[in-house]
């Protein structure tokens, strides 16, 4: 009886291959008719981070990849270590120039491609 040859195998585990996280967010105002351009939107995000986490985290590498002024929705990119900080500062942001507003986080994913399809809006016919 021949002994079975030793099986060789290699196991590769990826904990988190992506170093960025992507968020699809939408800004809602209490009153209608408030508009922001892309620069003002980014300024709002950075001031939210600065209020809660200070100047050190206001300098996190945050990018606004797309921005639509009509619907006030955007896709943001942040490094993975800063995701929790960005999300919590968006949650606690209450007002812009005295007007009440709130951020709605629609989707979060480490892969940008995942933001193209949202299974919540899936319509099955």
């Amino acid at each position, binding site marked *: 009886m021949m002994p079975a040859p030793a099986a060789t195998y290699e196991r590769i585990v990826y904990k988190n291959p992506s170093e960025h996280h992507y968020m699809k967010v939408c800004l809602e105002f209490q009153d209608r008719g408030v508009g922001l351009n892309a620069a003002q939107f980014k300024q709002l995000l950075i001031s939210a*981070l*600065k*209020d*809660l*986490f*200070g*100047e*050190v*985290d206001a300098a996190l590498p945050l990018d606004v990849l797309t921005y639509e002024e009509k619907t006030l929705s955007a896709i943001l990119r942040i490094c993975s270590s800063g995701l929790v900080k960005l999300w919590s500062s968006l949650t606690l942001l209450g007002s812009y120039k005295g007007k009440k507003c709130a951020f709605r986080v629609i989707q979060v994913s480490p892969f940008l491609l995942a933001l193209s399809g949202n299974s919540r809006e899936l319509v099955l016919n």
Partner: protein
Amino acid sequence: MVRFKHRYLLCELMSDDPRCRLSLDDRVLGGLVRDTIARVHGTFGAAACSIGFAVRYLNAYTGIVLLRCRKEFYQLVWSALPFITYLENKGHRYPCFFNTLYVGGTIRTCQKFLIQYNRRQLLILLQNCTDEGEREAIQKSVTRSCLLEEESGEEELSDGGEEAAEAME
């Protein structure tokens, strides 16, 4: 055993102006550190660090400061110290900076380090001394601190180190 653990940051205030050290006040300094943490780390940092924060020891002659903070957030305090650039007193602004010498878990370890550090500083001062009167005074302090070490062995008297530090100024 469950208890609150702290970290003690031993810092030295370095400044060009000799009046800066004399205007050190523990409440003013505590307020300054808290404001700097609020600026650098925001509301979260200010709240997290101010729970266990206290100025435990202050020496106006040598500019040595001992700050206490909770163990979970000592890095926030430590990283905010380089952002302190001036000390304000009665309308005068003195540019200065904080040099962190040692981080310890208890006051006793910080004290032990401070005694050794003061001894080394005395020897450095002796080398750079120009005035004869000063040289004699420093040599006396050095011999006194060495004698104290031989007498008491493990139990260091902090008075020796601190009096010698006062004689430095």
